[in-house]
């Protein structure tokens, strides 16, 4: 790599600060590329002098391209942007491809939040997020960022819900999309209880998704969550569960999650302990043997106190 700073007249007034690595036995020493070592030497020099300038902005960009997880360089960059009165929209334009190159980086999203917060508008963020999700539709950082955006700009609206539905339609097993739905439905209410109509709507939505793919754990978890949140008894789901798992037809079970919920419903009924045991046996032996230890544990709890066993 060319030497970018040492021979550059723009940087002639800066004396780079070499890295002091604490004696002859450094831990986790890295074979730095010369390019990185040189840039870091100049970064230490300008940071030590608290220089905020256009050339420093370029330097931070260079370091970030080589080490995007350098947390102080991001904080320093934010300060530089502030001090030189940089155009924040330009900053976002630069961040977009940078985020696409580093899909699993925390700092980029923190920085983006800082900038978008200052810009005071979510405009353009939707399409950018969609581009990110095309790379990885379950990227945790992207979903978390979208949730921050919804909260910051109060976007708990029908459009957001419709977009979430389109994500679930594209992949019903995208648990991040299911969780985003929960975030919208529960989050818009703050800590308050959900209206009955909303509870009904959510239950119907989850049921429809389950009927399409009964072995998909995401809508089952969602359904259980809604029912608990609304403080409905698990038994209110019994008829629905029986569509997929009925102990009278033990060879025709279409969903281990249905069987799981059925076991839970029976567990809560003092007179149905034997049925609960049978459902848990089917799970352990036939329909979900990789969790056999867990199902057997649930079976063992059948004779203990109710508090120890109740999930729903």
């Amino acid at each position, binding site marked *: 790599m060319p030497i970018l700073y040492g021979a550059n007249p723009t940087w002639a007034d800066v004396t780079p600060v070499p890295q002091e690595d604490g004696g002859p036995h450094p831990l986790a020493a890295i074979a730095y590329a010369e390019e990185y070592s040189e840039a870091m030497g100049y970064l230490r020099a300008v940071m030590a002098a608290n220089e905020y300038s256009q050339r420093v902005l370029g330097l931070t960009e260079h370091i970030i391209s080589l080490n995007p997880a*350098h947390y102080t360089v991001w904080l320093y960059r934010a300060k530089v942007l502030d001090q030189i009165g940089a155009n924040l929209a330009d900053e976002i334009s630069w961040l977009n491809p940078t985020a696409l190159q580093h899909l699993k980086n925390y700092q980029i999203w923190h920085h983006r939040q800082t900038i978008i917060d200052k810009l005071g508008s979510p405009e353009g963020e939707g399409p950018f997020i969609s581009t990110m999700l095309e790379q990885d539709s379950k990227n945790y950082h992207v979903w978390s960022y979208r949730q921050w955006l919804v909260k910051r700009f109060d976007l708990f609206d029908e459009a957001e819900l419709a977009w979430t539905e389109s994500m679930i339609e594209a992949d019903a097993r995208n648990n991040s999309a299911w969780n985003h739905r929960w975030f919208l439905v529960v989050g818009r209410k703050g800590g308050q209880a959900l209206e009955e109509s909303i509870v009904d709507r959510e239950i119907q939505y989850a049921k429809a998704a389950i009927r399409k793919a009964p072995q998909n754990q995401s809508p089952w978890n969602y359904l259980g969550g809604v029912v608990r949140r609304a403080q409905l008894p698990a038994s209110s789901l019994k008829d629905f569960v029986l569509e997929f798992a009925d102990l009278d037809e033990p060879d025709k079970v279409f969903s281990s999650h249905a069987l799981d919920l059925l076991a839970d419903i029976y567990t809560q009924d003092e007179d149905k302990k034997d049925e609960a045991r049978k459902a848990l046996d089917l799970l352990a032996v036939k329909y979900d043997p990789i969790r056999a230890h867990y199902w057997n544990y649930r079976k063992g709890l059948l004779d203990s106190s109710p508090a120890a066993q109740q999930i729903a």
Partner: protein
Amino acid sequence: MQESSNRPLHGANESGLQYAKHIKYWRRNLKTYLPHHYTSNDSNRLTLGFFILSALDILGDLQPALSAEERQGYIKWVYSCQIPTGGFRGSPGTDFGSLRNDGNAVWDPPTVPATYFALGTLALLGDDLQGVKRREILIWLTRMQRPDGSFGETLGLGDRIEGGNDTRFGYLSTGIRWMLRGTVEGPVDGVPDVDVDQFVKCIRDSETYDGGISEDSLHEAHAGFTCCAVSALSLVDRLPLPANFAPKADDRIRGVSNLPLMLHWLTARQTMTLDEEDALDTYADETDSTATCHDGHAFLPHNYTSEAGRKSIESQPTSHFEMSWVGMNGRANKIADTCYAWWSCAPLKLLGHLELVNKKPIRRWLLDKTQHIVGGFGKLPGYPPDIYHSYLGLITLSMFGETGLQDVDPALCISTRAKEHLESLPWRKAVVGEPEPSKAETVPDLSYMTITGG
């Protein structure tokens, strides 16, 4: 998937840990430069250093691997990362040397992760932590906590608490607190405590509808955040009490409000979806079959499925799935990944329920599928080993009781030996309040409780 990843590394059918290869892998990490692609981890060298030394410790190789001179050299290096005002920087990369002053100190800050891993590394190396500015760290820790109870990563301009408010930093902060003052609550010799109640409330606020812990209130359940939360609760002694456990019962708020649901979620992390190819089928396919759902079920075609789905099932064998290998994922409907063996199983261990997963096929998955031929573990089958996955794969096997590995403490993610070393330090015993066993003449050293002025 690469062919080689299916081949057991040890014998014909028996899975085995390749001790010699792992030792070689970790010694190489210790004694030679890490390849330049670790540059993206340059700010976390204390973390990498901790993993390297701790892995050798778990393998029982720390003593043989280090000369006395090297041991002192590494201790010296860790101390070189200590900030004059307390705490540790993540790497020497931000050290301005003699140019450091009050005006630029904010760009060379101590961080919570670096401080945790520095203390852990010193413990591993047998240091007594007398050179650590312990009092300053504990005061700094109280400034790292936000009003909502969460902890940040570092202090920025204007003492702004930077970094996410997720449980990673809460875990490492409570780990630092445990190392320096145990589980004692309230001020100790004039040094205030963090707000443990508020921290527990913050964790409870991150509990999800399906039983895990997320990055933030109402976000998606994730095994990494769940493990950090449960470990932190353990380190502040606020895990739920077992039923009928009266002797310890008190009014203190405790974490994990729905333990049965969390056990349900944690055990659901076991999966047969072991690599990227397994997961591809789930896109735009609404059918459930052993091909699309690798979670170990044998389902008959269902009349709810589409015509296309029905056809896709017809071509699939109806026989049972292969139970030899079971992986662990970090979220619902994700593929298995070596690191989630730790993030999902460690909380089970801390909650007293590791027996709820089937350790045998999980062990086989680690040994046959992600253990690498050169030592270490990769993230997925066929992936090259890296320090992070190699450490978490190894320590998981140790927690499972693998023969020949040292016992580990699941909350601290370190060997029991290193933990006991910390517990044996006289200054710590004086703070934690444990009586000195048969050494009545030992005077408790409280020097760190005074401002050293450095």
